[in-house]
């Protein structure tokens, strides 16, 4: 009987270990982290940052790298401007969405599109600290040497088809989001690294005009 229990514990331990991100261990005091992360996020009214995005295609053993600028303003205004190797602008302000590619402009409401609404929500939740309370995901917390990891696993049906996991990396010093990884069931993943981050800088309204 003891052997069965032992085998069960070993199996569970190995499964838990597999769920962890390499280089990150179990967080010692989740309650403290949650409180600190929420408090730090509450103090962030704006973010201005450069970003590097990598689309990793596992089966092709290849990736597409793009760069741009990112702006966030509380509560839910985001501007992402891709500048290299293509030009693409997306502004989300509440439920209004403005998209401009190299040829066309498009205005739409994220409220009318379930998929867009969910993606929009993930993006905003990642930066305003609400990711820990998301009802669309189960949340696991881990710690590394330099940063914390919020591991999100989707529970909502549509999100499950898009992502196996979403990993949010949080700086141990200022609790700002440094990296987001969106892993797909196929094995591909998209990584967004935020660099040259500036908090609470004055951002003009014009940046977030989505109409």
């Amino acid at each position, binding site marked *: 009987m003891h052997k069965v229990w032992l085998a069960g514990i070993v199996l569970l331990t190995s499964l838990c270990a597999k769920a962890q991100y390499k280089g990150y261990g179990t967080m010692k005091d989740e309650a403290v982290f949650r409180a600190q992360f929420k408090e730090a996020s509450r103090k962030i009214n704006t973010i201005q940052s450069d970003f590097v995005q990598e689309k990793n295609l596992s089966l092709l053993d290849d990736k597409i790298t*793009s760069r741009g600028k990112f702006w966030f303003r509380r509560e839910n205004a985001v501007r992402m401007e891709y500048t290299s190797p293509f030009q693409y602008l997306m502004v989300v302000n509440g439920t209004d969405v403005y998209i401009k*590619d*190299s*040829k*066309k402009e498009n205005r739409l409401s994220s409220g009318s599109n379930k998929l867009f609404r969910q993606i929009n929500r993930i993006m905003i939740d990642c930066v305003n600290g609400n990711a820990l309370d998301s009802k669309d995901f189960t949340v696991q917390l881990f710690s590394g040497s330099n940063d914390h990891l919020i591991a999100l696993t989707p529970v909502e049906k549509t999100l499950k088809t898009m992502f196996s996991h979403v990993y949010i990396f949080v700086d141990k010093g200022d609790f700002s989001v440094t990296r987001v990884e969106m892993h797909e069931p*196929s094995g591909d993943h998209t990584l967004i690294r935020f660099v040259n981050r500036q908090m609470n800088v004055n951002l003009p309204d014009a940046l977030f005009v989505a109409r």
Partner: protein
Amino acid sequence: MRYLLLVSIWLAAGCRSAYEGVRIASARPCIEAFQPEFSRVVYSAQAEVAGRHLTGLLMIKAMPDSSIRMVFTNEAGFKFFDFGFSGDNFTVYYITEQMNRKAVLKTLRKDFELILMQHTRQPFAVIRKKDEWYYDFKNGKDHYYYITDSACSSLLRMERGSSRKKVVEAYLGNFTNHMPDTIAIRHVNFNFTITLQQLDDDAAE
């Protein structure tokens, strides 16, 4: 009676084949020289589908097993499809639920097979029409036409259709290292166009 005659003339004119011309009994196989070699390339993609505008990135890559993979994502990285082409074989590695329709897959497969020149190893016929030579490769009910000048020194355009009607036309432009810088695919019977512009992304990063 006069009315019937007019209708007959109109019908005859309307039924004239888009591929009517002088058939050349023997012509040297010169088309293979124009086959693009997609070692690894990323295009900025724009598609107009029935009034809807769609943009993203299309990666085309030659795999070690000689197959060609095509992956289309939006700018933010969300994948729409991942196709594999190998000779006459077509593999759908991934496609979003919204795009997973038989007609969509069939259309995309044939459009990309046209530009990849997947069916040019088969026997062909040649039709001369004014100064243009149509190299006609049959695959099932479809005809894949590669249209050159009379000397076969340049590929003017590509077309797919039946033996009588054109369904789609494609243009490949500005080749560098056997890869076109621009690709345009236009359907003639419904509003569907794809335009691709090569991006200077750094694969080694």
